[in-house]
C-alpha cells in the first residue's frame, strides 16, 4: 500500500491551496509568459496528482473529515471527501490542465491583454472549485461558492469594454443577489431548524421541518444556487459568454456551472434526503420548473446564431438535467446526475474549445458564417461533431449513460413526463447542435472565405483531442465511475 506523505484528510486542503499558491508565483513571473504558463501547467499537473491520490485514498476506504475553525463559532469549516465531490474534483482538476494547454494556444493567438490577471483569477477559481467539491458542510460550500463568483468576475469582464461591463453587472447581480438573498437565507434557516449544516447520508432535515417550510427551503436552494441556471436565474450565463473562450470552456461549461448543479445535487441528497424530498409538493413544482428550463433553453438555443450563445443555452438546458436528476430523488437519478457532471463537462468543453478555435483561426462567431468551414478546419469540426454526440447522449459517447441513468431514475419514481422531457430534449439537442457541423462540412465554402484560414493552434487541437478521448472513455468505462459514485449512497445494488 502506498503511504501518502500527508494523511489523506489533509489532501483536500492541499487541493484547495495548490491553485491559490500558484497565484503569487504567476504574479512574480508576469514578465515571462513562458514561465507564467509553466507555473500554471505545473500547478495543474500537481493538482491532478493530489486529486488522484485523494481518489485513491478514498477508493481504499473513507477519508476522515477535516475541520478547521471558521467564521461562525459553532460551525467549523469541514472538508469531507465523498465520491460525488471527488468525481467533480477529478473532472475539474483534469480539465484545468487541459484548458491551460488550450489557453496557451488561444490567448496568444488571440493576442489577449492582461493575461497575467487571467491566469491568476483562473487559478483562484479552480481553488474555489476544489473547495466546493470537498466541502463537508453547507457553510463551507457557500464560502467557496462566493469565492468562485467573485474570482470569476474579472474573468468574465476580461475585455473591460462596455459589453463586458453590462455582462459583469448581470453576472454579479444575479449570482451575488441570489446567493446572498436566497441561498444564504436558506442556509441560515436550515441551521436554525436542524442545528447543523453537515452533509449527511439521508439528509439532516428529515423529521425536523414542516413540509411547507421544507418546500420553501428547497425552492430557496434551487433558485438561490443560480450557478445551476434554472430559469429564471439563467440570464447570467449567456451574458458571461463575453469572456475569453477558455473561461467559457472551463468555468461556464465545467467548474462554475457544475458547482451549481453539484451543489443542488448534494443538497437534495445530503441535506434533504430522498425520502423527505419525494414527499414534498414543492419537489414536483420545481421539477416542472427544471423541466421547463430543459425544454425552453433548448428552444432558445435553436434561435441563437451566435455560436457561444447557443452553447450557453445548451448548457442551461443540460444543467437542468442534473437539477431534475437531483429532484427526482432516486439513487439511479443521483448516479445519472453525478455522471452527467462528468459527461457534460467533457462534451461541452470540447464544443467550447471548438468555438474558440474557430474564433482564433477564422475570426468567426456566428453559425451562419460557418458554411464550408469544415473543409478548412476538419479536425475542429470533427471534434465538434463528436462532442455534440456526447451531449445528445448517443453511443459511443459517455453522455448516453448519464441520460440513461436519469431516465431510469425517472422511471423508478414513475415520473413519466420527465422521461418524455429527456427524450424530447435529446431531439432538440440534435436540432440545435448538429446543423452546425453539418453546415460546416457539407455546404460549399463561400468564395474567398477560406483565404488564410487554417486549423487552430496545435495546443488547442491537442486539448480537443484529449477531451474527445474523455467522452469516449466515459462510454467504454462507465462501470468504475458509477461503482465509485454509488458508494456515495452505499447503494451498490441500485445500478442497473
Amino acid at each position: 500500500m502506498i503511504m501518502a506523505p500527508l494523511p489523506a484528510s489533509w489532501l483536500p486542503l492541499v487541493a484547495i491551496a495548490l491553485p491559490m499558491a500558484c497565484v503569487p508565483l504567476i504574479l512574480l513571473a508576469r514578465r515571462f509568459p513562458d514561465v507564467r504558463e509553466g507555473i500554471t501547467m505545473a500547478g495543474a499537473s500537481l493538482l491532478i496528482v493530489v486529486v488522484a491520490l485523494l481518489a485513491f485514498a478514498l477508493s481504499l476506504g473513507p477519508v476522515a473529515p477535516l475541520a478547521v475553525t471558521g467564521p461562525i463559532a459553532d460551525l467549523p469549516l469541514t472538508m469531507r471527501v465523498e465520491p460525488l465531490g471527488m468525481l467533480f474534483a477529478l473532472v475539474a482538476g483534469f480539465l484545468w490542465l487541459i484548458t491551460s494547454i488550450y489557453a496557451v494556444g488561444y490567448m496568444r493567438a488571440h493576442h489577449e491583454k492582461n493575461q497575467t490577471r487571467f491566469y491568476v483569477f483562473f487559478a483562484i477559481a479552480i481553488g474555489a472549485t476544489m473547495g466546493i467539491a470537498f466541502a463537508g458542510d453547507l457553510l463551507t460550500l457557500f464560502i467557496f461558492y462566493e469565492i468562485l463568483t467573485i474570482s470569476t468576475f474579472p474573468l468574465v469582464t476580461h475585455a473591460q469594454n462596455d459589453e463586458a461591463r453590462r455582462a459583469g453587472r448581470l453576472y454579479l447581480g444575479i449570482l451575488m443577489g441570489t446567493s446572498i438573498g436566497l441561498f444564504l437565507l436558506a442556509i441560515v434557516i436550515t441551521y436554525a431548524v436542524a442545528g447543523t449544516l453537515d452533509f449527511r447520508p439521508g439528509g439532516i432535515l428529515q423529521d425536523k421541518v414542516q413540509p411547507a417550510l421544507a418546500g420553501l427551503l428547497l425552492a430557496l436552494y434551487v433558485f438561490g444556487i443560480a450557478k445551476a441556471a434554472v430559469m429564471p436565474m439563467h440570464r447570467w450565463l449567456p451574458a458571461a459568454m463575453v469572456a475569453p473562450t477558455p473561461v467559457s470552456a472551463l468555468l461556464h461549461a465545467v467548474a462554475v456551472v457544475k458547482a451549481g448543479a453539484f451543489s443542488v445535487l448534494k443538497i437534495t441528497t445530503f441535506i434533504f434526503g430522498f425520502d423527505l424530498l419525494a414527499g414534498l409538493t414543492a419537489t414536483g413544482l420545481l421539477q416542472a420548473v427544471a423541466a421547463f428550463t430543459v425544454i425552453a433553453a433548448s428552444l432558445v438555443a435553436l434561435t441563437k446564431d451566435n455560436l457561444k450563445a447557443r452553447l450557453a443555452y445548451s448548457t442551461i438546458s443540460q444543467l437542468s438535467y442534473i437539477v431534475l436528476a437531483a429532484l427526482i430523488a432516486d439513487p439511479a437519478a443521483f448516479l445519472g446526475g453525478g455522471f452527467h457532471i462528468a459527461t457534460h463537462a467533457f462534451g461541452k468543453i470540447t464544443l467550447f474549445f471548438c468555438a474558440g478555435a474557430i474564433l482564433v483561426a477564422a475570426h468567426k462567431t456566428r453559425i451562419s458564417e460557418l458554411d464550408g468551414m469544415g473543409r478548412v478546419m476538419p479536425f475542429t469540426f470533427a471534434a465538434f461533431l463528436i462532442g455534440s454526440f456526447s451531449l445528445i447522449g448517443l453511443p459511443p459517447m459517455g453522455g448516453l449513460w448519464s441520460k440513461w441513468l436519469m431516465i431510469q431514475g425517472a422511471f423508478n419514481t414513475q415520473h413519466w413526463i420527465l422521461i418524455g422531457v429527456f427524450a424530447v430534449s435529446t431531439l432538440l439537442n440534435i436540432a440545435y447542435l448538429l446543423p452546425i457541423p453539418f453546415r460546416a462540412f457539407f455546404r460549399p465554402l463561400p468564395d474567398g472565405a477560406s483565404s488564410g484560414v487554417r486549423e487552430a493552434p496545435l495546443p488547442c487541437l491537442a486539448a480537443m483531442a484529449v477531451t474527445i478521448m474523455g467522452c469516449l472513455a466515459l462510454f467504454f468505462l462507465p462501470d468504475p465511475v458509477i461503482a465509485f459514485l454509488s458508494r456515495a449512497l452505499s447503494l451498490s445494488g441500485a445500478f442497473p
Partner: protein
Amino acid sequence: MNLLAHLPALQIVVPLVAAPICAVLFNPRIAQPFAVLVSLVTFAISVGLLNEVLAEGEIVYHMGGWEPPWGIAYVIDPLNALLLCLVSGMAAIVMPAVRLGIGAETTERSRRLFLSLALLALTGMLGIVITGDAFNLYVFLEISSLSSYALIATGNDRRAAPAAFNYLIQGTVGATFILIGIGLLYMMTGTLNMADLAVRIVDLRHTAPIQAALAFILVGAAVKAALFPAHAWMPNAYTYAPSMVSAFFGATATKVGAYIMIRFIFTVFGAEWVFGDMMIGWILVPLGIAAAFAGSLVAIWQTDLKRMLAYSSVAQVGYISAAIGLGNRDGLIAAIVHVFNHGLMKGALFMVMACVILRLGRADITSFRGLGRRMPVTMGCFVVAGLSMIGVPLTVGFVSKWYLVLGAIEAGVWPVAVLVIMSSLLSVIYIGRVIEVAYFAPAPDDARIQEAPALLLVPTLLLTVLCITFGIATDTTVGVAAYAVQFLLGGLP
C-alpha cells in the same frame, strides 16, 4: 504604584492629559509623533484591559478611590473592553496619517489644535464607553461631541461649518435628551451609578418617569447613533469633514451611540422589561429596517462617495438597531459584532476616500474613473471592504449578517430576516457601481494620479486585512461578543 491596577484610569487620563499638551507645547512637527505615541499607548491600554477582562471578568475601578455613590466607577466588561479597543485602535490607525489626511484641507497652523481636538474626542469616546456612572457618561458625551463639532468644522470645504453647526444643534438635542433621561432616573432613584440604578429601577418600572426616562435616553442615543430618522446630521458632517475625521468618526462615533443604547437597555433598565413590557423591539426593529432601506437606497444615487458612505452608515446603524431590537442572544451578538465589524469596514472605506482625495482632491464618482489601474492597491482595498459591506463570506460583514439573520429567524420574525437580506443586496448596487467606474471607465489622461503614499496606504491596507482576518478568525469578535452577552442578558435566551 501598580500601573496595571490603574489601567482603567490611564485609559482616560493619558489622552486627556495629552490633548492640552499637544495644543500648547509642541510645534506641529513634534505634536504629530506625540499624538501618534499617545494613541498607541491608549490602544495598548485598551488591549491590556480586554485581556484582563477576558481573563478575570468584569473590572470595577473607583476613580480616585472614591466609592459610589460619591465617586465615579469605571466598569469594564467584555462589551466595553471590545469597544475601547475599536475606538483607540481606530485612533492609532488614523493618527499617523493625519498629516496627509488633513494636509490638503486644513492650514498648517491649525494642525496642533486639530491633533489636540482629536485626542480630546478620543478621550470623550473612551470615557463614554468605560464609565459606569450615568452622569459621567453625559459629561464625556459632551466632551466628545464638542470636540467633534470643532473637528468637523476644520474641513476646508465651506460647507463644513454649516454641517458642523447642524450637527451641533442636533447633537445637543440628543445629548440633552440623554441628560433629561438621566435626570429623571436620578430623581426617581437617587443614584447615578449604573449598577445601583439597575437595582433600584426594578421596583419603579411602573412609574411614568422611568418610562419617560427610557424614551428620552433611547431617542437621545438614537440621535448620537444616527438612527433613522434621526440621522440628518451625519451625511453632511461626514462629507465635508476632513478625510481623517470622517474615517475616525465613521468608524467610531455612531458605534458609541449604539453602545449607549445597549448599555442603558441591558445594564440599567433590564432587557426583560424593556423588550417584554415596553416592547421596545417594536420600535427598534422597524426603525432599523427602515434605516437599512432608506440609507442604502439613498446611497445608490449619491455621486459624492463620502456622502454615499455616510448614508451606507445610516443603513448599517439600522442593522445594529434591528439586531438590538430582536432582544435575543444571537441578535445581541450580531449587534455587538456589527458595531465592531462595521467600524473596521467603514474605517477602511473612508481611508480609501482619504487616499483618493489626497490624489485627486475630491471623491465624487467621476474621479474614480480608471482608478483600478492608477491606484490598484487602494481600489483593491475598496473592493475587499466593499465586499465586506455586501456581506460576502470570509469578510467581517458576513459574520454580522449571519448572526443577525439567525437571530431574526430564532426570534420567529421571518420578514425581518428577508428584509435584512434584501436591503443588504442594495449594497451590491452602490458598491458595484464604484467598482464598475474604477475598472471599466477609461482613466483620465492625468499622469499625476498615482498610488497613495505609504502613510495612508498602510493603515488602509491594515484595516482591509483586518476586515478579512476578523471575517475568518472570529474568536476575538464573536467570542468576546458572546461573552459580553452573558453579562448583558444574564438568564435571557
